[in-house]
């Protein structure tokens, strides 16, 4: 998941919750992120790799 998270951050970070929370104001700052903040973009990448998610609410 570290690799997938890195790819999301490198290529699609602007579509993530992490971007909205920490970087969207244009100021330079560092933040220790977690995969949970990458949301559906990371989920889609994991599904492309063969991980399946089944939700039951």
């Amino acid at each position, binding site marked *: *998941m570290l*690799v*997938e998270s890195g*790819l999301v951050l490198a290529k699609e970070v602007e579509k993530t*919750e992490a971007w909205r*929370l920490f970087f969207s104001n244009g100021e330079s700052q560092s*933040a*220790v*992120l*977690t*995969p*949970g*903040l990458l949301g559906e973009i990371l989920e889609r*990448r*994991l599904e*492309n*790799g*063969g*991980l*399946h*998610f*089944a*939700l*039951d*609410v």
Partner: protein
Amino acid sequence: MQQKYPSASIQSVRCCATDIVVGISGGSIASAINLAEHYPLRDLSAALKPFGLSPIKPRQSVRAKDILHDDRLGGWIGPWLMSPVNAATVCRTYGLLQGKWGDRFSYREYMTYGSWWKAKAMSIALKLAGVMLAIPPVRWILRKYARASGKGPSQEEMENGRLVMKILAETDDEPPRTGSITVSADADPAYLLTGRSHASEY
């Protein structure tokens, strides 16, 4: 769950590996050795508490039991190798999102063992392993005989890997409402699926 039940808070999340076959790479072993070598056991232990990396803690969180019986997760469940790291990561997400899952949130990660004795034995073994890594001769032996950095599970091992993880979340209602996510893979999720995920975009 909060989309379906907007007034509810999430009280307890249990994530359990009910079926897992996964290899370990030399890089992961080296990471564990390096952590133990460069950071005091007390600091590592503090960081690996559930909310040890979170900027905030829930006001009323109750620490979930180490070992318990849950028929929905296959019977007796207990900690596994990744429990502390993954729980600290999820709880940091909770903190970065300003506690949006509620004031009673707790998260714990487990594996299904089939009996209380097996779960207890693994719980003790994991605690011992953490302490042993702090002993320099143990790290020396591991460096010499364990899988080296750059080495990993074979192609056959990875193709025979699998994963089923069930995540159960309960609200703080009485009786609690429950939702679940089942995560599954039919190959090694750590390495082979990572490679496939990487390759799938090209």
